[in-house]
């Protein structure tokens, strides 16, 4: 049995100055704070501005356009952006996982092609994992990759692909070898967008907003990303990064800010206390990753508890603020509440449902 073990993270040296720089920039920047801004708040100009300031691709080596900084320094920057509700959605996936993933698995040509552009905020990525018949059971994906005249071609359909309509490239998990071993015949591919044989169609969200897409590949040209047959391992290795970041407990932070300043008391204090602990846990996972450990189980825990906190915030805000959710209200609280309420079901679905996450924890504990 492996009991979860988290050593508190250590703040990066000089993190205070970095934080002050980001705060000064945010105070002067013009944007409307949003809930769930990392998924639904896309602003390519804002992303380029962050790139120009050196706050994208921070952990990438300098030779690939990055800044060679630590994961904890990046943590400082992204948590400040998220807490301010800044529009970071356009570059989020590219910065969070595609940069590190291309650095780890990409060819030299792919590194040169994508990493500097990611760090400049000029290359946005989408992730093609889920399909109409494959959600939690990701290994059942049916999108096919076939070699035609020495080049890979993709055929199949991906859904819930956030940001595919503004992305410059997409990473796709596809079956490159038929056969009974479901986890073995999968590979990752990169598709540069737009491309022949790729159709991107919007799937409107609950309030009609557009971030989801259906992406249909009909013999689309693709390049192998990583090793053939290694897709499953590459995808699962990324999960600890994807599941433990501050975006897993800060999606409704804008409401926390309002509750704490307008109705300070036991209810707001409960949120502050929980937030303090979840942030320590998230920092601890970041520290473990930086130190080369494998905190898969701990990352699943952080996401399970963090996303449930994001929802808890909504109920406390409803109770304390006494406003009706209204996307067009002149009242900021009513607008934020409206954004939070319609996005909330997604908090505990995206990146692995909470039931799947708890299954991972149970396996780690040795009862599964």
């Amino acid at each position, binding site marked *: *049995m492996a*009991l*979860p*073990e*988290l*050593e*508190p993270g250590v703040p990066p040296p000089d993190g*205070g100055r970095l*934080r*002050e720089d980001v*705060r*000064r920039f*945010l*105070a*002067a920047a013009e944007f409307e*704070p949003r809930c769930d801004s990392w998924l639904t708040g896309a602003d390519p100009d804002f992303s380029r501005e962050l790139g120009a300031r050196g706050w994208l691709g921070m952990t990438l080596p300098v030779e690939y356009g990055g800044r060679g900084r630590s994961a904890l320094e990046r943590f400082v920057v992204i*948590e400040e952006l998220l*807490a*301010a509700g800044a529009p970071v959605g356009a570059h989020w996936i590219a910065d969070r996982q595609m940069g590190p993933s291309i650095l780890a698995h990409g060819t030299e040509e792919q590194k040169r092609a994508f990493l500097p552009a990611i760090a400049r905020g000029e290359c946005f990525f989408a992730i093609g994992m889920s399909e109409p018949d494959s959600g939690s059971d990701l290994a059942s994906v049916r999108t096919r990759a076939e070699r035609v005249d020495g080049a890979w071609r993709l055929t199949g359909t991906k859904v819930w692909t956030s940001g595919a309509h503004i992305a410059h490239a997409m990473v796709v998990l596809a079956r490159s070898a038929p056969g009974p071993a479901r986890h073995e015949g999968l590979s990752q591919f990169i598709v540069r967008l737009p491309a022949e044989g790729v159709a991107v169609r919007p799937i409107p969200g609950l309030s009609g907003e557009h971030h989801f897409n259906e992406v249909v590949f009909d013999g689309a040209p693709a390049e192998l990303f990583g090793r053939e047959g290694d897709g499953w391992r590459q995808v699962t290795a990324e999960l600890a990064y994807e599941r433990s970041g501050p975006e897993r407990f800060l999606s409704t*932070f804008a409401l*926390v*800010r309002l509750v*704490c*300043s307008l109705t*300070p*008391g*036991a*209810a*707001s*204090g*409960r*949120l*502050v*206390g*929980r*937030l*303090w*602990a*979840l*942030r*320590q*846990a998230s920092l*601890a996972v970041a520290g473990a990753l930086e130190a080369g450990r494998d905190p898969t189980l*701990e990352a699943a*825990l*952080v996401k*399970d*508890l963090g996303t449930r906190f994001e929802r808890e915030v909504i109920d406390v805000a409803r109770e304390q603020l006494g406003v009706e959710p209204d996307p067009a209200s002149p009242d*900021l609280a009513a607008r934020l509440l409206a954004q939070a309420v319609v996005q909330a079901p997604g908090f505990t679905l995206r990146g692995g449902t909470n*039931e799947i*996450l*708890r*299954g991972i*924890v*149970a396996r780690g*504990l*040795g*009862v*599964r």
Partner: protein
Amino acid sequence: MPDDKELLEETANAILGLEDDPWPALDEAGLTGVGVPEHAGGSGGDLADVAVRPGTNVAGESRDDVTVRGDLASVECPVSAGDVMLRGALFRAVQLTGAMRRVLELAVRYAGEREQFGRPVGRFQAVQQQLAELAGEVAVADVAVRAALRTPDDEVAVAAAKLNASRAAGVVADVAHQVHGAIGVTSEHPLGALTTRLWAWRDEFGGETHWARRLGELGRVPWETVTRTDASPDTVTW
């Protein structure tokens, strides 16, 4: 004469009832002089002004009520009530997370051993999901407490640690008992010695609401509070 840190720990252990014989530590701390006249080397006062009502917490640990009247009530005390609460809260938070880790071990082991319907109860997803929840609450409380131990004078850190440990204690005890079934609610089984302490300790030196109120006061600008940074005039404060 032990150094200050050692003395503080021994005194705390004595006051908190962790030692069979608290008198040597209390004596060392000068606390046994109460009621002894000052010219005789004591700290004065009249023991008739001290009323002790013996009592225990739900775990059977000694928790007497002591009422002090008269001159003794105005004896100068080197630590404030707030300091005692803060130290006590951190101390209990450490105890809570230690006990909770043990409860998690017991629950996981029992779920793997106890068979019903022809398989260990831990094979049922309904039970797995509960155990995962238990593990999550323990892990988050544990990391919060460890972080607070680095800054034991920071009221925000200690308040958050105790709040999370106290909150987790309820969830952990509930799940562990549900997993254990009836055997867990007998005094012969080791689980009860831990869960009764969880129920007692979560409310000692302030439960969730006590520390939540304090964090509500301290955290009106929550991001700066949580990151332990000052709010400068040009940061986001909408």
